[in-house]
């Protein structure tokens, strides 16, 4: 900066910077610019006093207004809930059998249910609700239901959960482990018979049928159609909760397998339970209410 000198053409002082022989003139900025700069400093000080600003070890200064982004989000959520209060109310009280007939309320329930599902259900059943066969999380997109696929059935499952000690209304499936009750040979025959019910293999003859009727038919039915009252799966269809290979079926017969689902009525409100039931019902497997 030693090169302070006046520019010949304009008489303006130069900054001493020169690029390719072009010198930079030291042209002063307008004064209002300076005052605008001071104003931003004053604004900054006021802002620091009013709003959260200085970072501390855990958190930040709170500011005298007590404003926070979390508080603002909470306010917005409250505002949305308030504006939806009427819909939430009528969703809580409407008979689920007639919900699909109420187009506006049904649409609201499906939209709300989609976000409830994403937050609470997708961890096990998957983002697309296709379940995880290896872990026994059922596919919610198909038309096969262990406990029933009407809106009421689904809402009941969501509300109370499956195999849940804390809730007497929870659904509870029981299957004995046959590994210690049957001989290895008998199990092999039984596996073949069960798989033949859905046409996966040849029927092993009357021995298999006899074993089935003695051990399995009480829950799964004489024809293997299952029983929704006790959550016994239909063995004749193409859907296998834990897999339909001979190994998978044998493992199931020897050790038995049970799915567990937590109850949601404590964590979700009744309206949210109904909403997510409506959403799951709309995924392509929903069954019509009996008598509808």
């Amino acid at each position, binding site marked *: 900066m030693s090169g302070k000198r006046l520019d010949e053409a304009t008489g303006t002082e130069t900054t001493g910077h020169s690029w390719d022989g072009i010198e930079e003139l030291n042209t002063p900025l*307008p004064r209002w610019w300076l005052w605008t700069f001071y104003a931003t400093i004053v604004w900054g000080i006021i802002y620091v006093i009013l709003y959260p600003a200085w970072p501390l070890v855990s958190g930040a200064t709170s500011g005298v207004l007590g404003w926070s982004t979390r508080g603002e989000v909470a306010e917005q959520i409250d505002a949305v809930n308030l504006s939806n209060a009427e819909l939430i109310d009528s969703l809580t009280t409407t008979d689920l059998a007639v919900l699909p007939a109420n187009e506006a309320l049904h649409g609201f329930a499906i939209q709300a249910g989609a976000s409830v599902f994403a937050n609470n259900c997708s961890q096990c059943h998957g983002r697309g609700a296709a379940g995880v066969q290896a872990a026994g999380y059922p596919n919610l997109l198909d038309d096969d239901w262990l406990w029933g696929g009407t809106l009421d059935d689904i809402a009941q499952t969501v509300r109370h959960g499956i195999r849940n000690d804390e809730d007497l209304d929870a659904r509870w499936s029981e299957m004995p482990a046959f590994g210690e009750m049957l001989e290895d040979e008998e199990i092999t025959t039984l596996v073949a018979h069960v798989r033949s019910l859905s046409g996966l293999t040849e029927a092993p003859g009357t021995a298999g049928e006899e074993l089935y009727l003695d051990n399995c038919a009480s829950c799964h039915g004489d024809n293997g159609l299952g029983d929704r009252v006790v959550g016994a799966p239909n063995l004749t269809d193409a859907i296998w909760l834990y897999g339909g290979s001979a190994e998978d079926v044998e493992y199931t017969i020897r050790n038995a397998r049970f799915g567990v689902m937590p109850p949601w009525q404590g964590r979700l409100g009744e309206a949210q339970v109904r909403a997510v039931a409506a959403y799951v019902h709309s995924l392509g497997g929903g069954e019509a209410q009996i008598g509808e």
Partner: protein
Amino acid sequence: MTDQPLFAAQEPIFPRKVRGTFRNLKWVVMIVTLGIYYLVPWIRWDRGPNLPDQAVLVDLAGRRFYFFWIEIWPHEFYFVAGLLIMAGLGLFLFTSALGRVWCGYTCPQTVWTDLFILTERWIEGDRNARVRLWKAKWDAHKWRLRLTKWVIWGLIGLATGGAWVFYFADAPTLLGDLVTGQAHPVAYTTMAILAFTTVLLGGFAREQVCIYMCPWPRIQGAMMDEGTLTVGYRDWRGEPRGKPRQNREGDCIDCMACVNVCPMGIDIREGQQMACITCALCIDACDEVMDKIGKPRGLIDYLALSDAPPDTLAERVAANPIGIRATGDASTIPAPGAPAPAPNASPVPILTRADIKGWKPQPVWKHILRPRTIFYTIAWALIGVALVVALFIRPEIDMTVAAVRNPTYVTLSDGTIRNAYDIRLRNKHGEARDFHLSLNSDEILRIVVEGRDDLVVPVPPDSTTRTRVYVQARPGDPAAGANRVDLRFWVEDLISQERAYVDTHFLGTESN
């Protein structure tokens, strides 16, 4: 000068009234642009029931843009993008041909500043009166004039903000709401902000906006070249300047008319400068003076850098060391950049000042019709044609298909393989329409609409409906076990019989 302050007080500018061609042009531009701005929201356009009858309307809540007979939906926003590109190319075109012609005539900052100066002149008088008032003490007279001016500026500002909000809602309804205090707070806030900024920028900041705030003067330098027409001073004709009746050679009588009328407060005789917005008022002022003193017009004129002769005779000789014939006739002097004649030409004769004084610029059309401007015009026109074509061939019926690939397929209890698709159907008509879906494929596939027994999707007027659609392959059919099967969704408007299709795929069990 060495103790120059870092920040300098604003030099007030008091532009003098001027008459002439360019001033008239500016009045016309002002009336037309302000007229468009204030009147367009009030043009009615009958679109039938349930649709707004305002010709130009930005319906943010409904996500629609109405422009006379054209209706733009959010997915057609490329029209707006295309118009913005055309606007950009238009600026390139005009800037490369005519410099800052946008700044000088049509920029809102210029138009509103002009309007504010007009008000100021009407209340406080012309330049000399305003200078006197500026220097005067703050007595009752000065307060009265200033307050009157500020109130009128405020009203202009309010009208500016007021007109803006009419583009976003039904104008007559909104006007009633605004007057009775029923309008949305956003409308009042917008009006207040625009009123404040209009008065601040047009009334007080004025040329400071162009010099310090606007990025455009910095960008425009890249778009201009030595062939661009800008407002300039023929120094070879005007210099050396001097008072009338003094002994002088140049035509400039140093009357300062060009400086006094300049809204930017610059002296155009110092050459091309960043602050010049090429409003050409100095041309009008100078021409008037030239008429009075009996000299030809055009001492200050629209001209290009390439029109100027080299500053001095020596430079001129240096620039064209060969081939210059001193005949006194400017037409024999080759323009800069012209091919040089044979190197064995005769020695360079010296030109007289009369030669340089008579130096003529290239004709205007040569500055405007250049490869560069022709390229910009063609690019601009191509985009315009593409937009018009797109406007006429865009379908009235519109469908988008999103295949649900989480999971890729679902096995149903009877072994059927099912794919899901989210189909969006747009109904651009003013009444509800029924859309019939169908499917076309080489393989045997079945289509099912979620929640319906048939394949008809009713879509409410002027809206979009999302429907989940399933495509199923029976167990044993080739598609069920296939990797991927091409299929085409057809949609038909049952009333207008219009059809559209979207191609997608069906994924079978082999797709995993």
